[in-house]
């Protein structure tokens, strides 16, 4: 297939892709789809795939065996969806390679495996199996970005197009001016998904207004926080969605230069996005004069590896330019002076993924989702001893209580909920009595908590507040780029005090010193890392003050985590 040169050619191509897609599901052969993502590979999904391939070939069962992305149901991986002729697709979980022989046997006998049934991908119950949407983990979600995750093959541009992909790009290119695209994004009230929640439309407008040329549009897929993994799952499951958002972003800024900066550790996400770019070039959705619209767009993929600070906007741009990724003072802001000193619009992966939806359905439609000031859906990940560990997509404004206990199923048996850490390493935790609070960009802030990029960590009574606070601050200390003094020297000072307390050598005035030093670090640091580094500690201290005091006055750690009795020389 060569490059498509006009809109009509795309329409024909899309119609064919759609026909093939529909035929796949109506065909007489079996369709078996295995979820292959970073997390399922860790649980042996690739072996499950190979084993299935072998046994299905042995059994002479005509099967289309597919690799799909991650549905976000990490807790049930490896996931296998089976569609036999005349039946709806049924999703099974925990299909490890040792289960495969029995699994295939059962299916071949015309029976249904009884173990690990998650649901049928249909609107109605079938053979006593409930629809997948009614699964407790999925029931409370609103899946827009994840709609096709785990259904389409992320390595097939045809699957994406067959399910409505690149329609938004066409609409933008042929029916809208760049200004209209920006207006639509403004109307949607979409706020940045990378942490700060800055209104995307306003950022794009500022980028347009700066007269310098060329301009750049950059996706931030760095995702280096220690408690979030949503962007890489999205890229693994539906890379074209992010790419389509990026191309629309370039059109809105009237620039042919797009970038995606992907954390080097996210190998599969990187590979799949790169492949998506190649496929888009081959089909003429990237390159010069896209579909004869006169608009050209070129996307480059760049990576770094193992430096959290490279997620910060200005640091990321230095990193792309082959410099050490260290932030600089602002202003000028990136929309005025970013990459190669030119106006640069930087947004999070998820922000870009939301754009095609907005363009296709209109900003006003998007604004009806979520709350008035926090519109739309948000990908969230929850870590810790919860029942349904995975990636969820919720409408903003859902209460934290529902998020923890309904969506993620609450803590597993044998654990007692103690708190939930919010905002990655940039904010404080909430206790159980504080969970009646909407998960959105603004409501959490007065409580010292934060939505951030949507990474939450539930912790139970076996976790010590002092130790956890130490962990979170030590992360920032380790990742401090060392450019400015308050952060470079302040964060180690906090860690040192916390270690003193953990080892049983805390001093009566330590808590005051913490407050004082934190204030200095927050106020004087150059970039976002230092400015929020003490927040988790201050939050823990406010909520679990008793525990800190116990450590200091009684040399006691009620969780039994801190090495209270160790000798001074063991202090790192």
């Amino acid at each position, binding site marked *: 297939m060569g490059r498509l040169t006009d809109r009509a050619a795309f329409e024909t191509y899309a119609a064919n892709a759609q026909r093939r897609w529909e035929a796949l599901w109506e065909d007489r052969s079996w369709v078996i789809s295995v979820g292959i993502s*970073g*997390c399922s590979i*860790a*649980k*042996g999904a690739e*072996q499950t795939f190979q084993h299935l391939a072998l046994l299905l070939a042995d059994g002479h069962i005509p099967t289309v065996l597919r690799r799909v992305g991650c549905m976000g149901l*990490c*807790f049930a991986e*490896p996931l296998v969806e089976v569609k036999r002729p005349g039946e709806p697709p049924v999703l099974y979980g925990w299909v*490890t*390679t*040792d289960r495969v022989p029995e699994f295939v046997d059962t299916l071949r006998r015309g029976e249904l495996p009884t173990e690990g049934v998650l649901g049928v991908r249909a609107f109605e119950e079938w053979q006593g199996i409930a629809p997948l949407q009614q699964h407790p983990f999925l029931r409370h979600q609103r899946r827009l970005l994840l709609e096709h995750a785990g259904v389409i093959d992320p390595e097939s541009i045809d699957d994406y197009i067959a399910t409505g992909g690149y329609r938004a790009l066409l609409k933008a290119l042929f029916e809208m001016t760049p200004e209209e695209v920006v207006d639509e994004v403004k109307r949607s009230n979409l706020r940045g998904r990378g942490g700060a929640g800055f209104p995307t439309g306003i950022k794009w407008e500022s980028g347009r207004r700066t007269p310098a040329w060329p301009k750049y549009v950059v996706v931030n897929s760095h995702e*280096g*926080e*220690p*408690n*979030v*993994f949503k962007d*890489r*799952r999205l890229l693994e499951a539906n890379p074209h969605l992010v790419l389509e958002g990026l191309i629309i972003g370039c059109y809105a800024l009237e620039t042919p230069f797009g970038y995606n900066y992907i*954390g*080097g*550790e*996210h190998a599969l996400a990187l590979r799949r996005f790169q492949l998506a770019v190649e496929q888009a070039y081959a089909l003429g959705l990237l390159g010069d004069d896209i579909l004869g619209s006169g608009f050209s767009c070129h996307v*480059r993929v*760049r*990576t770094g*590896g*193992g*430096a*959290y600070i490279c997620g910060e906007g200005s640091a990321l741009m230095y*990193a*792309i*330019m*082959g*410099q*050490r*990724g260290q932030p600089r003072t602002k202003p000028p802001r990136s929309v005025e002076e970013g990459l*190669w000193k030119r106006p640069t619009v930087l947004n999070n992966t998820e922000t870009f993924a939301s754009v095609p939806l907005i363009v296709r359905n209109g900003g006003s439609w998007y604004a009806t989702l979520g709350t008035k000031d926090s519109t739309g859906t948000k990908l969230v*990940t929850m*870590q*810790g*001893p919860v029942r349904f*560990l995975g990636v969820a997509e919720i409408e903003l404004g859902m209460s934290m209580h529902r998020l923890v206990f309904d969506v993620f199923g609450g803590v597993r048996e044998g654990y007692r909920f103690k708190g939930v*850490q919010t905002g990655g*390493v940039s904010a404080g935790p909430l206790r159980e009595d504080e969970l009646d609070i909407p998960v959105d960009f603004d409501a959490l802030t007065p409580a010292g908590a934060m939505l951030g990029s949507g*990474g939450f*960590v539930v912790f*139970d009574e076996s*976790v010590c507040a002092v130790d*956890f606070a130490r*962990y*979170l601050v030590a*992360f920032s200390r*380790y*990742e401090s780029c060392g450019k400015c003094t308050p952060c470079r020297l302040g964060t180690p000072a906090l860690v040192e005090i916390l270690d003193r307390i953990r080892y049983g050598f805390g001093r009566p005035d330590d808590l005051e010193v913490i407050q004082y030093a934190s204030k200095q670090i927050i106020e004087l640091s150059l970039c976002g890392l230092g400015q929020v580094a003490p927040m988790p500690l201050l939050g823990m201290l406010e909520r679990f003050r008793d525990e800190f005091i116990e450590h200091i006055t009684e040399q006691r750690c009620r969780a039994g*985590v801190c*090495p209270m009795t160790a000798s001074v020389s*063991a202090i*790192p």
Partner: protein
Amino acid sequence: MELIEHGWTGPDLEPLRRILEERYRPRDYREAQELIVGACQEAQRLYGWVPPSAAQLIADHLGVTANRVYGLLTFYADFQTEPPGRHFLWLCHGAACHVAGAGKIVEYLQRERGIVGRGTLPDRSVTIHVFNGCLGVCDLAPAAQLDHHEYLAHLTQERFEHLLHDLQNDGAAGGADGAVD
């Protein structure tokens, strides 16, 4: 450079040269600078680390100084500028792994093995990096990744000690399959 003393003349640079010539062809100096990190990653994939001769080759190919290349190699935690051990282990120290007990293993490494953050065991059997981020497999927490593909699940200090012991005696990681645990 103990390796050189042992008569090692350096890695075969041909494969790297081929990759650079095929896929790292900057149109201008800006793009050349953008490609440094990617080129270093190619080298690390090939050799398990970025040997000085490879860094020099990259510098020459892209028209930048070796200093510039080293500035980046030492900035990013994922690059190795020393020859690694036979195995490479990423011990996850993300938040989920920490609350599940990874902190104890990190302290054990520090206390008993003298490894803070990263290091190679004296017998060069294993290079260990404490991964200051999330490996993305939190329900296996505390988790580790061995040799970039195999995952180890629900580690405890004891299991971790066994693992190191097995790797030092060059068994494969016994019972290390994340899927079964």
